[in-house]
């Protein structure tokens, strides 16, 4: 772009460019208008509701209540019967479950992506289609199917009883919730890693081998750094829906493993307390953005480190 600007520009060309910019802005404007009304303004609404009370007056009690700084939130005073939730604990649990599910997905998906990228070309396409196929079924159906399997009277435990083994209680445990996340979002981790690996320049790996790297070093010095981009976008694609889920934790966690998504859903739809709900959503959003920023920072460092070595 700098090169483009450094040329001396004739007034005619300048006029032409200005016209071009005007045209570009004109055809983008319907989209821009749409996004301002239906994306930006709703975000402003979230912030507005988060910092006001039911009467519309400014307050920071909603956010304070979440952080445990305020003993009683507006919410409790109004509904009376509502049991005060330990929001910090629920936030922490959501982040923790999401992180564990993401790591498990990464550990399972990375070898899958690698093995697939080593296959013959036409076979790669078939396998990747098979990885994607469950994704095209609604996640509610998938979660429901998993729930039915894990139940005490489900097919696994029925088989165990038939074999004379004791029933293993799996449903409504943290294990079931994390399993549900891994099951639902595993393809989101496989696809970006695979797409980076399939485009990887194989001659780099050969070069490393020729220069005397063993398998392990080829992996840590060549394959892993080159696939970092896919790993980072995979982590984002699994972590964000995992942390913010509400259906998976309801169905597989019972009432005991409540996550932040459940609280948001309940606060908005059952209690219709938009102010507290908006405050929780805002905090969730900020927490996720912080996580993503840290992630991106990390991956940038990684690639910069790589370029310095080269």
């Amino acid at each position: 772009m700098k090169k483009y600007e450094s040329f001396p520009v004739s007034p005619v060309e300048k006029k032409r460019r200005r016209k071009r910019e005007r045209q570009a802005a004109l055809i983008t404007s319907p989209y821009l208008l749409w996004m301002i009304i239906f994306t930006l303004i709703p975000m402003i609404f979230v912030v507005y509701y988060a910092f006001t009370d039911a009467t519309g007056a400014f307050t920071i009690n909603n956010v304070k209540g979440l952080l445990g700084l305020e003993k009683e939130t507006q919410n409790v005073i109004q509904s009376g019967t509502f049991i005060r939730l330990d929001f910090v604990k629920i936030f922490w649990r959501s982040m923790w479950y999401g992180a564990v599910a993401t790591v498990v997905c990464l550990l399972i998906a990375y070898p899958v992506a690698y093995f697939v990228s080593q296959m013959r070309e036409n076979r790669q396409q078939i396998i990747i289609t098979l990885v994607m196929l469950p994704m095209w079924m609604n996640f509610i159906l998938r979660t429901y199917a998993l729930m039915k399997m894990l139940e005490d009277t489900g097919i696994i435990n029925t088989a165990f009883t038939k074999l004379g083994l004791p029933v293993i209680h799996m449903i409504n445990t943290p294990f079931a919730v994390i399993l549900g996340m891994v099951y639902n979002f595993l393809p989101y981790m496989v696809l970006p890693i695979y797409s980076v690996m399939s485009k990887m320049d194989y001659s780099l790996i050969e070069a490393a081998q020729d220069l005397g790297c063993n398998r392990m070093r080829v992996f840590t010095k060549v394959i892993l750094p080159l696939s970092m981009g896919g790993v980072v976008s995979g982590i984002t694609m699994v972590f964000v829906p995992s942390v913010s889920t509400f259906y998976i934790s309801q169905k597989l966690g019972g009432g005991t493993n409540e996550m932040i998504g459940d609280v948001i859903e309940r606060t908005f739809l059952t209690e219709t307390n938009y102010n507290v709900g908006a405050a929780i959503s805002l905090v969730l959003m900020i927490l996720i953005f912080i996580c993503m920023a840290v992630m991106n920072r990390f991956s940038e460092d990684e690639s910069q480190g790589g370029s310095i070595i080269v």
Partner: protein
Amino acid sequence: MKTFSKIYMITVFLFLYAPIMVMVVFSFNGINSTGLFQGFSFRWYEELFQNRAVLNALKNSLILAVLSSLISTVLGTLAAVGINRMRHSWIKGPTMMLTDIPMMNPDIVTGISMMLLFVFVGKFVLGGNSIMGFWSLLIAHTTFNLPYVIMSILPKLRQMDPKLTEAAMDLGCTPAKAFVKVVLPFISSGVIAGMMMAFTLSLDDFVISYFVNGSNFQTLPILIYAMTKKRVRPTINALSTIIFTVVLILLIITNAVQSRGEKKNIKKKGIRQ
């Protein structure tokens, strides 16, 4: 190593497909049980096809997917062309940021933020008339589709030489004609990919729809959610089996068409494998 990778892949696929396969098998169950299989029957399929709500929800979902993918493709294509043309404009940065918001935000936050807007509009602009239902769903679906459409068209536009459009205009095309004759054919694969992606995203969405839907317009994912909330009938297994089969057939067809297209291309160019 070879055998290890094979065993590994089979284990992962078992994990991915076991719950679905269990549902498929139990959709033919003679009794209402999730653990025991007794006798083969089609009774749950019969019950499903007598359920008018399911067929109605399917129809609603398809209408919504077609309309929202069309609107988002038109708006998104224009926007992508505009964004690609911008060089020094101060609008470019904010536009890209707005495009990123729905993609980065968790679905639940997008859902509740739109719900707040629609509730507000219903209360204070329309005087208590709710727009929750078809219109709110159409707007929400179009909004979350748009970034994906733009993201699938922009790379195509970047590959294109801007001189092509200029040449067409020098040869007497109006900007609109140059767009239809030159730009659109060049980016058509990106446009179609974006539209198909929008269609499936819309058809599959639950979280955002859940927060902006009304009682008079139910989509299939919302209906499925309602079905799993109440005392569940095994008809849901039959429904899953049908959805799975349809998706499977569609994917086989697309794959076949794609590989045939590739073969044709190879023949045309005279390249031998």
